[in-house]
């Protein structure tokens, strides 16, 4: 069912809150992978607030949908989502990265409630997601698995090994997102190691590829609705901006990881507010 205007506005509001919480967490931690966190926040928002069939009071529910964050360094965005959802105490975010905290840069599935896989070493998430999707078949369960990879990490060959498996077993109970923010630690993905034509690559590996604006909640939701009804495994290639919502970070590879001081924090807050207003205006313009 198509996204209603009210639903869209509610998701925009939630995404705005979560972007702010991600910024706060980066500020509390002193620094973090905020660029790649912001680029995927819309994807995380629609998953945790529209699609994932999960239970707040039963995080280990065997029939729950699974979410594998392959780009594990986006923990600075994922931890706020999991705390805001209610799996973990929000106060924990103030300990992010501190010695003996349960939460560090890469979230530990045995320590942070709601994390389905301990990721961080890149190129690991998609194989694990293929595994949870295959297990659903063996255990005769109807849950969905969602996986979010970065784009830079697609240089790792293990992703393409997993892609072959997903195609071979026609794992249409797995929906893969690629956060195509075009940047990695050392620069633009096309300068470091060419990924394009990326959609063609995934198509040739057997995916039904949907290209969307990854900062457009409506487009993302339409793509997930399409994927849920598809007889084939769908990959949602989400075109995004690193550091989305914060002007000086946007599309700047140097903000893969960075530190936020008091002055910068205020600037970022202002930017996020402006960004939210523009997003709401778009909803008013485009929603039917």
């Amino acid at each position, binding site marked *: 069912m198509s996204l209603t205007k009210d639903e869209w506005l509610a998701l925009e509001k939630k995404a705005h809150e979560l972007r702010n919480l991600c910024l706060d967490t980066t500020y509390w931690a002193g620094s973090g992978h905020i660029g790649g966190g912001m680029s995927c926040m819309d994807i995380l928002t629609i998953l945790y607030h529209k699609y994932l069939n999960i239970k707040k009071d039963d995080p280990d529910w065997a029939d729950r949908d699974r979410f594998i964050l392959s780009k594990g360094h986006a923990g600075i965005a994922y931890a706020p989502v999991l705390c805001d959802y209610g799996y973990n105490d929000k106060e924990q975010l103030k300990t992010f990265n501190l010695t003996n905290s349960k939460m560090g840069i890469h979230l530990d599935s045995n320590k942070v409630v709601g994390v389905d896989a*301990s990721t961080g070493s890149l190129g690991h998430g998609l194989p694990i997601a293929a595994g949870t999707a*295959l*297990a659903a078949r063996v*255990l005769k369960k109807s849950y969905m698995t969602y996986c979010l990879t970065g784009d830079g990490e697609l240089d790792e060959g*293990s992703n393409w090994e997993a892609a*072959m*498996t997903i195609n*071979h077993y026609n794992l249409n109970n797995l929906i893969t997102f690629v956060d195509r923010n075009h940047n990695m630690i050392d620069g633009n993905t096309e300068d470091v190691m060419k990924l394009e034509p990326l959609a063609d690559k995934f198509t040739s590996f057997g995916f039904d590829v949907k290209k969307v604006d990854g900062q457009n909640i409506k487009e993302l939701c339409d793509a997930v609705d399409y994927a849920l009804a598809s007889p084939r495994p769908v990959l949602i290639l989400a075109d995004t901006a690193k550091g989305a919502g914060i002007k000086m970070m946007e599309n700047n590879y140097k903000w893969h990881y960075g530190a936020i001081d008091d002055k910068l924090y205020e600037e970022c807050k202002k930017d996020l507010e402006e960004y939210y207003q523009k997003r709401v205006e778009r909803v008013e313009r485009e929603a039917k």
Partner: protein
Amino acid sequence: MAGGFVYTAVESTEMSTAEYYGNTLAELGREHPEIVALTADLANSTKIGIFQKEFPDRFFNVGIAEQNMFGVAAGMAKAGCVPFLSTFSVFASLRCADQLHTDICYQNVNAKIIATHAGTSFGQAGSTHHAIVDFAVTRAMPNLTVICPADGVETANAVRAAYELNGPVYIRINRGFDRVLYADPDYGFEIGKAVELHEGTDITVIATGSCAFQALQAANFLENADGLKVRVLNMHTLKPLDKDAVLKAIMDTRRIVTVEDHNIIGGLGSAVAEVMAEAGKGCGFTRLGLKDTFAPIGLHEDIMSMLGIDSNGIIAAVRDVMGKDFELDDNWDDEV
């Protein structure tokens, strides 16, 4: 033993070590529907294919893609399956070491890696297919239990015990047929407990894998030829190591020889040396294995002989250690 599959010496002459594994896994599969099996194009070579024949819907061949296989298995384990993974030991421990470390061990998932073609047992394939550092790699991985059975019967015991243990387990078994050490499976196999194969008070030979049979042969020979009482321990579990058995050997026999089909760095010899050094007890000591070299190409038996990890090599090492005065300091009065 649970189940009805009891192996005999007759079957040992007819079944390779990997066939014991495949049959045991199929038997476990009948009892436990959550068991799944994965391989990377080595269903037949590793004998995990025996499970495949009976449970095709619970078997997944991911192609020649070990990293993917370990990730997929971790995901399946996280979702409630108990995956058994099989490929050659050299690939299981090296090609996908990152996935073993992070997806399997760090997440502490209930996955069982049954790695075949261990040590130099695929001798003719050369060093690309010899697993001579897998003990070093797997021993250093937290949460992982590391087992090296001596023969087919012990493999069956180890595979069953691995299922019973909740957590990741690495078992390395040889290609082909092992010399039969156990005619009867009921000798009290227990993970982390060495098995005394031969009593002795003069020296202890601690062996693992197919070297255990060789050590027992050496002990029998030395008893007759030299009148030596050689204690032989089958150290089938590399981690957790049976420290008590090592300390007892130091106290009782004051001389130890370790034997393994592996580099002497990081394997059984290193593990025993660590226990000895931490105990602060000196002891005559020699490690047999690959002396930090790659192995030649050849039949496994020939390679074992060339490396000195067969009975002749063990006999020579025992005589050497017996002939050495390791107590160089006469006034060393704080010893055991």
